[in-house]
């Protein structure tokens, strides 16, 4: 290799380093800009919230609009079903029948007192929140309830789901 060739090789090498540093810095800066848009802190209501003194629950359906949550009470059993449609997030309507109705749903005869229907694209859920018509890919989630020992209030934990036969005895 002649002197000249070595020099030009060295120049090429240094140029590449320069490019790397330049583009790398620019890329890093923009990655930083983009990252700033993913919030680290959310000023949102918590997923685990206190609802109501269970003594004040009505028999049947209780709707908690600010949490988009239905709480049902039958005798001494309570359970909670989300009101958020699993298709694209609209709030489903509670549709009571006023009496027990026998319906054939997904090939089975079941007895229902109410259903949940979604205004946005017509998803229909059974009394237990199972999807039986419309585009929603899954049923409405059930959330666990507990009694806050300090206040005796009902607390719901919307960060985890439970099976649909889950019940809290009060």
């Amino acid at each position, binding site marked *: 290799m002649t002197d000249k060739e070595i020099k030009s090789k060295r120049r090429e090498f240094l140029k590449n380093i320069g490019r790397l540093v330049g583009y790398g810095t620019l890329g890093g800066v923009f990655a930083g800009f983009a990252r700033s848009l993913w919030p680290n802190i959310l000023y949102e209501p918590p997923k685990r919230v206190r609802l109501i003194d269970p003594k004040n629950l009505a028999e049947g359906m209780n709707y908690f609009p600010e949490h*988009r949550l239905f709480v049902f009470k039958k005798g001494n059993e309570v359970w909670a079903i989300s009101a958020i449609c699993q298709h*694209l997030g609209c709030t489903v309507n509670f549709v009571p029948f006023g009496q027990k109705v026998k319906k054939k749903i997904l090939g089975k005869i079941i007895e229902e007192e109410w259903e949940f229907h979604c205004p946005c694209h017509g998803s229909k859920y059974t009394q237990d929140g199972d999807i039986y018509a419309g*585009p929603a890919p*899954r049923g409405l989630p059930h959330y666990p309830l507990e009694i806050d020992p300090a206040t005796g209030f009902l607390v719901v934990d919307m960060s985890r789901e439970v099976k649909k036969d889950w019940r809290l005895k009060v």
Partner: protein
Amino acid sequence: MKEKLYQVWRALIWTFDPADRGEAGKAITRNFWLHWFPPRMTKRSLSWGYSLWLGTISAVLFFILTITGIILMFLYVPSVERAYQSIKDLEYAVSFGWFLRNMHRWAAHMMVASVFLHMVRVFYTGAYKNGISHMAKRQINWVVGMILLGVTLLLSFSGYLLPWDQLAIWAVTVGTQIARSVPILGDDIYYVLAGGTRLDQNALIRFYTLHVIFLPALLLVLFSYHMWRIRKDEGLASVEQEKIARKSGKPVQPEMVFSTPWAVRRIILVSLGTFVWVLFLTVFLESPLEEPASLEWTPNPAKAPWYFLWLQELVAITTIRIGGFTLNGGFIGGVLIPAILGGAATIWAFIDKSPPEATGVWFHRSRLVQNLVFTFFALLIVGMIIFAMYFRGPYWGVYWPWAWPELPEII
């Protein structure tokens, strides 16, 4: 008479009397307002019937939107506590607030329509083709145009949220949830779009910023490039017709006219016409404002703005279940199908191998089949919009428009 008018025009806007064509051309390229026009254009490309001037109409609407939008920025507060109230104030307290809001809103709706129709025009006239030009790369403008169409739709969608009423919140809930239904990446996309896990202040300020600066700036840059390309592509595609005729030895001289007054006059006419039409809508049609946004209950039915109704129809009917495996219609109808349609339309400009003679003329025979296929999809979309608008009732059920069921009061 025409000659007389021309002389008056020249006296008004030229400080000197050009001695020949060269000088006349220079007078245009050296004028600040006119320099982005070529000195001369063909009469055919300026005709009403070729382009229908839909691109210009879109640009004028964008101009109206910018002016009214800037004034609205002085009057609107992008906060969840005050957004709705500031729209109410526009309607009832601010002098001519209703006028501003209506004008901005109707121009926005018109722009979605005119950009779409402009695309339809470009397709039917084969105007993304290069004819026998060696310089032109009109496909690029078709691709830029598709992006412009997307940006126009995003602008409408982001603006839709700002009143923070029931209409707004549910359209955007569904829209953002569609993004969330994308497998794997969905949650991240939603998170950065809404700035959290629910639609709240973070979402409002993000949509606001997109709406008032990011997307309009992007549109302006792309539009400038769109215009620059037309110059570099040697003019609108219709010029290829004259080139082809000349090459085949026909003794046709393309009728060339100076950009001013010929193009300038038409642009002024189109601008005035567009403005008067928007003014008409502004004065005679009111803009809806529903109750303040509340996630606690959803209007029944909750319908998207008309240009997204076909998507709402699609997301409602495309959920597929195979065995235990379910794919949300939100992803299939809301993302996959529009992406395939848009992608196919975008690359079609490169696939279309019809002869050069089919460039820049309406409905050339050689493009019959593709025109029919294009029409089929366009009508399908329009059909779904009409169906969803008039035949979808409570709980998205199918009803005659005059026979919606009475709903019991719920909850």
